[in-house]
């Protein structure tokens, strides 16, 4: 045996510099995994110490602050019901005074206006009956958007010389007056989903894709019921068993999707998966969900993200079920399921590609080479802790 201290860099192996082979990031979470006799190279240390915190700072600050710092209505859908000549004049006036703030639909039917809010076609409605104005809001749709509609109704009433009364057709429960608890449930599902995949990929260095898929399924079955139970310690949603079960069901689909995406990223990116997870599942996902700030008050870029991302698909479908008798939940559930299906297809593609590549290497070298998925998973680098502590910053 050589009398020198064991080296930290495997000899004779050509490594991808991005894989940082000598660091300890791939074996921290699991017990007894740190070998204190090994230390990372200076380059690895600098890359890790600087890049990780910097990435989180950049991603969170840019995404969350840009989305939520000063919410104002952007094409907020509002229905105005009343005599055609009155609503026409009001619609023009609103368009002139608050350009692009509201997307007004006029109708002569008060019932249609109320239904448009209940069916989530509009954020709110203003019903005009002479000088009496009734403002229809839905705080379940957003506790921030409701006052905006209320102010609009008040201004219309003042203009008509009457008074405005407010009717909340989808109120929030007394235990959740700000309407944020469903969002916290979404956060629990997100972190529980991708963290489970991340830790299992660290605990089993040569983990196979099917083990990660099984973990995703397991997380989907366990995390939402457990998380909702914990939330229920504080909050009574005042909903039926069926509604609660449906919300947990949506949470299961969402958690599964998150787990699948984490699996896909782990297979495809290896050590870089944590950055991809933070970007896709947190930095872009949470601000666009429509929870901290409703879609109608997000900046246009974030409105586009909202209408295509998985988090908003889950959150809006939960919101529909919990507060709007399921109205429009199908649309949002479909948005979520597209992500689920896409993740499954992409995982299959990555596995096929990596197996073929592994087989090609095997033929060329005449030796047994690890297949792509296993090798990529092995390169997972302390992702669990980074992801968790990073996520904590945004909640």
């Amino acid at each position, binding site marked *: 045996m050589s009398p020198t201290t064991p080296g930290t860099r495997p000899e004779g192996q050509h490594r991808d510099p991005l894989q940082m082979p000598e660091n300890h990031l791939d074996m921290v979470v699991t017990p007894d995994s740190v070998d204190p006799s090994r230390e990372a190279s200076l380059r690895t240390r600098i890359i890790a110490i600087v890049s990780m915190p910097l990435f989180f700072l*950049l991603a969170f600050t840019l995404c969350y602050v840009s989305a939520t*710092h000063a*919410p104002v209505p952007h094409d907020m859908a509002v229905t105005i019901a009343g005599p055609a000549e009155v609503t026409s004049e009001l619609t023009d006036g609103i368009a002139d005074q608050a350009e692009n703030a509201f997307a007004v639909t006029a109708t002569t039917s008060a019932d249609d206006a109320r239904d448009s809010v209940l069916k989530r076609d509009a954020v709110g409605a203003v019903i005009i009956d002479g000088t009496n104005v009734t403002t229809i809001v839905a705080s379940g749709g957003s506790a921030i958007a409701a006052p905006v509609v209320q102010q609009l109704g008040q201004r219309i009433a003042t203009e008509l010389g009457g008074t405005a009364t407010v009717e909340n057709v989808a109120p929030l429960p007394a235990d959740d007056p700000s309407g944020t608890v469903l969002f916290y*449930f979404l956060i629990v599902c997100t972190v529980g989903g991708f963290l489970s995949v991340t830790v299992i990929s660290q605990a089993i260095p040569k983990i196979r894709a099917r083990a990660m898929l099984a973990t995703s399924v397991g997380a989907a079955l366990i995390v939402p019921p457990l998380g909702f139970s*914990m939330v229920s310690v504080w*909050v009574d949603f005042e909903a039926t068993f069926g509604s609660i079960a449906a919300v947990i069901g949506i949470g299961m689909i969402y958690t599964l999707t998150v787990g699948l995406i984490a699996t896909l990223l782990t297979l495809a990116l290896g050590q870089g998966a944590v950055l991809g997870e933070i970007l896709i599942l947190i930095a872009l996902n949470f601000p666009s969900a429509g929870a901290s700030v409703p879609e109608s008050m997000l900046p246009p870029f974030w409105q586009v993200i909202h209408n295509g991302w998985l988090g908003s698909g889950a959150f809006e479908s939960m919101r529909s079920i919990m507060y709007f008798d399921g109205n429009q939940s199908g649309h949002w559930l479909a948005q979520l399921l597209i992500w689920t299906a896409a993740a499954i297809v992409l995982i299959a593609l990555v596995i096929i590609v990596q197996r073929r590549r592994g087989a090609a290497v095997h033929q060329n070298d005449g030796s047994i080479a690890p297949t792509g998925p296993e090798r990529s998973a092995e390169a997972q680098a302390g992702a669990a*802790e980074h992801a968790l502590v990073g996520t904590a910053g945004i909640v």
Partner: protein
Amino acid sequence: MTDSPSSQTAVPVRRSAPVVKIAAAFLLPLFFVIAFPLLFVGAIHKPTPHELSILVVGPDQVVSQIAAGLDGTDEYAATATDVVDDAKSSVEERKVMGSILVSVDTADAAGNAAPAGSAAPADPAAATATASPGSAGAPTYTVTTYVANAEGRAVAATVTAAGEKIAEQLGTTATVEDLAPLAATDTLGVTLFYLLTYTSVGGYLVVIVLMQVMPKARLSTRFGAVTVAAIAAPLVAFGLSSIFVGDYGASFGTIMGLLGVIALYVFTVGSVGILIEQFLGKAATFGIMLFVVFLNFPSAGGAAPAAMLPPFWQFMHEVYFGAGAYEAMRSIVYFGGNGAARWIFQLLAWTFGIVLINVVVYLAKTVRRQKREIAELSRAATGGPELQGQSEADSTGDPASAKHVKVEVYQLYEPDRTEDPHHEPVRALTQSEGETR
């Protein structure tokens, strides 16, 4: 600080059973799924006023009853005074969350001096809230509510509601004056809290990454990294957020003060992380999540104002380091620095305390480790079976009674024991120096 040379003892590489390893790994997501709802959601899901401090200003015979009525509830901690100037100054100086000024004029005193203890409306706008004159001799009340949206929009709304209720009881309406409005680019009042949370990540993530890439880093190295993070993180986070939020309309000095407080906070967070790591080792993530996130963020007063938190979290707010930082930031940006000293002191107490404990713990662990190593090497020097060759610088006396021992152990030969299932490979040379007593 006495960083001893890190001695490389022969460390066997231990591996847990796969099942235990996997089960232990899942503790991390399980911890989040349980702790986050219980702590974070429990604190802020339903902001309700608890002992919200409010000042009622006006003639004693009028406001004492009003204040007593408010103070008798769990929602408010009300005090009364007849010093009109306190109505504004107490809010601006952050002594109370809001104030309600009740001015009284008697109908027959119109045009004459107000009766003793009464007050004129504090500003012209307040005059519009004057109650309609009643019958001759009946008093006329004017109610002005002073709020500070920078204390939290929910707090301002609660104080406003109290003012409206009092005005209604007095047969008038209240006007509201916001003495510390939020910046136009911070209408929800959340951006300072974002700064706090994101820079926290910069503070403790450095510690965690350092723990992984340099598991044997000296204490000075760790504090050095935390210091760098404390300087860089506020600059990066504020610089990026200013793209959207701007500078709050504040002066250069104000922003520098803000950045200084954040830097102190990040350093404190990093120091807390280092201390937790010293105690918990690889399980430090759990401790950091608990002490820096789950206990710190809800109690800071950003996600929900302190006056609207449950009593336990209000207590945490009064003592915890995140609250010290956040309230100091709020004072600096929105209250001209009023009240900042008290909160900076709270933060500083943590900073010094944690650094001190870190040093003490590190020294204690170092001395203990050195004693253990010396004892092991002394045993080995008397004929331990594991090591084949060894030399001692001081082998003349009894090693146990030596004042100073320097030992170098050389791994010269290790037989091939691959057949031995209990064999634990010796991985490193060992050098150790220290005192025994």
